[in-house]
C-alpha cells in the first residue's frame, strides 16, 4: 500500500488508531451521560478499570496529557467529552498540545487573520 505523506502534528484516526484506542474512546463516549461523568469523578481508577483501559491510556488520563491520549488511540471527538469533565475548552487543549500559554495560543489564532486571502499561484 502506498501510504500518503505524514502531516506534521497530525494523527489520522484510521483503523490502526481505532484498534489501539477502542477502550479509551468507549469510556469517553460514556461521558455523554452525566451520571457516568459523576462516577468517573468519584473514582477515576475504578472507572478506568471498568472500561479496561491499558496502562498507556490510564497514565495519559491521570496526567491529563492530550498528546498522550492521542498516542494511546484516543479520538478527538470522544476526548472532547473528557476535556469537558475537566472544564477545559479547546483553547486550553490547543495550548497544552502546542506548548504555549493559553494567551499565546489565542493570540496565535487571531494572528491567522493576517494570512493573505489568496496564495500566489
Amino acid at each position, binding site marked *: 500500500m502506498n501510504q500518503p505523506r505524514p502531516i*506534521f502534528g497530525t494523527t489520522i484516526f484510521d483503523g490502526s488508531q*481505532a484498534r489501539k484506542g477502542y477502550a479509551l474512546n468507549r469510556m469517553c*463516549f460514556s461521558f455523554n451521560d452525566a451520571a457516568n461523568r459523576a462516577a468517573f469523578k468519584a473514582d477515576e481508577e475504578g472507572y478506568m478499570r471498568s472500561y479496561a483501559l491499558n496502562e498507556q491510556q490510564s497514565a495519559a488520563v491521570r496526567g491529563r496529557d492530550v498528546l498522550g491520549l492521542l498516542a494511546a488511540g484516543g479520538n478527538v471527538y470522544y476526548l472532547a467529552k473528557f476535556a469537558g469533565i475537566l472544564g477545559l475548552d479547546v483553547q486550553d*487543549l490547543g495550548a497544552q498540545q502546542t506548548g504555549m500559554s493559553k494567551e499565546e495560543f489565542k493570540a496565535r489564532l487571531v494572528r491567522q487573520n493576517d494570512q493573505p486571502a*489568496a496564495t500566489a499561484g
Partner: protein
Amino acid sequence: MARIIGGLTTSHVPAIGGAIARGLQQEPYWKPFFDGFLPVHAWLEEVKPDVAVVFYNDHGLNFFLDKMPTFAVGAAPEYRNSDEGWGIPTLPPIPGEVDLSWHVIEQLVARDFDVTTCQEMLVDHAFTIPLKLFWPKSCPVKTVPICINTVQFPLPSARRCYQLGQAVGEAIRSWDSDKRVVVIGTGGLSHQLDGERAGFINKPFDLKFMDSLVSDPEWATQYSIHELVEKTGTQGVELLMWLATRGAVPGFVRKVHTNYHIPISNTAAGMMALECLD
C-alpha cells in the same frame, strides 16, 4: 414537485451554543460572527422554506465506533438533542419531515448509495446550532438530517460527498409535494483541535473554497481526504458537508450573503447563503 430554494452553510462550533444561551451576540468577540447572519434572516423571511435537509457530522453523540455509518439518513418524526458531555444547553426536539426522509432514502438506495437509515436519532450541536443561527426566534422548518462520517477514517471522498448531494437534490426535486426546501451544510471551515498542529487555520484555502461553491462547485472534489486534512486540518474536513450541500443545490446560484471570521474558538468560521437560480 418540491422546490429547492437554496443552500445555507455555516460553521457549528459548540461555543456558539453557549454564546446564544448567554445572549452574547453583541459582545465584541461574537458580533462579527453573529452579524453575518442578519442579511440571511431577512432573505429567509422572504423565501420562507418549509423544510430543511441538513448535512452535518455527528461528534460522538448518536454514533459510536460500534456502528459508524459513512452516510446516515434520519427518518424520525422528531430529533432529540441531548447532553454531549460539556454542559452546553440542550435544545428542544426538532420535527422531522418523514415523507421526504423515506423518499430520499428510496432514491439514494436506488442510485447505489448504501445509507444507514435512522428512525430514531439524537442530533448534536452540529445540527441544532445552525438552525438556531439561521432562525434565532423559532425554527419554522421540518427537517431531514443526513450525517456524513468525519470521525472514523476512511472518510467518504469529497467527490462521493458531492455526488451524494447531487442525488439528494434530485430526490428532493422529485418529491411529490409543493414544499419549499432549503439545504443546509454545517461544519468547518479550516480548524484542527488535536495534535501539535492544533490551531491550524488556512485562510487562503477557505476563501478559495467559498468562492468555488458559487461558480465552480466541483473544485474541491479534486482533493483526496488526506489532502483536505492537510489543507484544512483534522476538523476542517467537515467542509464535506458544504460540498454535499452545493451538490444538492443545482446549477447556477446567487450569493445572498457570505461571512468569514477568524477565530471563533479554534475555528475559521464561515457562512454562506446561496439562492438557487434553476
